[in-house]
């Protein structure tokens, strides 16, 4: 009989212990979910940057600067092309020739 009472008490304690442990676990989980549900709110205050056209793209490597000799050659080619265009206009002055688009890579 004593053994039965002891077993019953231990069983009740076990059930209570398991119930408390389960309750604690559930409380912790709900706290975590509360925190997690607040995180997106904090993130939402920051504007979305991915896939946005307005986000400036910072190159990891600075753009290559062409050597000055190449730059001067590009300017010279541009001047020659513009002179040719101006000569065409002077040979037969029309509005279209005056405002013809240049193909010079220096400005395109």
């Amino acid at each position, binding site marked *: 009989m004593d053994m039965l009472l002891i077993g019953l008490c231990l069983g009740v304690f076990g059930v209570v212990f398991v119930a408390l442990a389960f309750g604690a676990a559930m409380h912790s989980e709900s706290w975590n979910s509360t925190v997690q549900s607040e995180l997106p709110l904090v993130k939402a205050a920051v504007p979305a940057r991915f896939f946005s056209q307005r986000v400036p793209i910072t190159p990891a490597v600075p753009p290559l600067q062409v050597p*000055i000799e190449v*730059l*001067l050659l590009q*300017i010279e080619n541009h*001047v020659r092309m513009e*002179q040719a*265009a101006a000569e065409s206009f*002077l040979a037969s002055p029309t509005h279209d020739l005056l*405002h013809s688009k*240049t193909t010079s890579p220096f400005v395109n």
Partner: protein
Amino acid sequence: MTHELLNGLSPIEAELVLELGTKQIVPSGTPLFRLGDPADRLFLIERGRIRLTLPMQVRGREEDVFVEERSPGQTVGWSALIPPYRFTLTATAPLFEAEVIALPREALRKYFAANPEAGHKIALNLAVVIGHRLQLFQTMWLREMQRTVEVRSA
């Protein structure tokens, strides 16, 4: 060799004008004249090419930027006949040496005074050279301005 400055002159008149000048070799890379130099003679190109440049600030350095290239028969250095008689460009022979005939201003003036008809023809030819340059650069300036306006309005 036909020189644009001597168009319309008789062969004898042209010969007399050319005799006023002296032939000058311009070694490759050597300036014939520099921007700001006193201009007391103009040049008729006999051989080779003369490259005209203007200084421009490029990346904090002053660089001679190409403006125009003149070839045999053409004239450079007409600032010698236009006050304040200072060159407004720098002229060099780019890759190969060039040969020019240098005509001193004072010799030309004396010739024009003694031969007004020939002087008149040369003055008209000079007006064509200067006028063409003016129209050319006026057109180029407008095209550059148009581009600037388009960029600023975009």
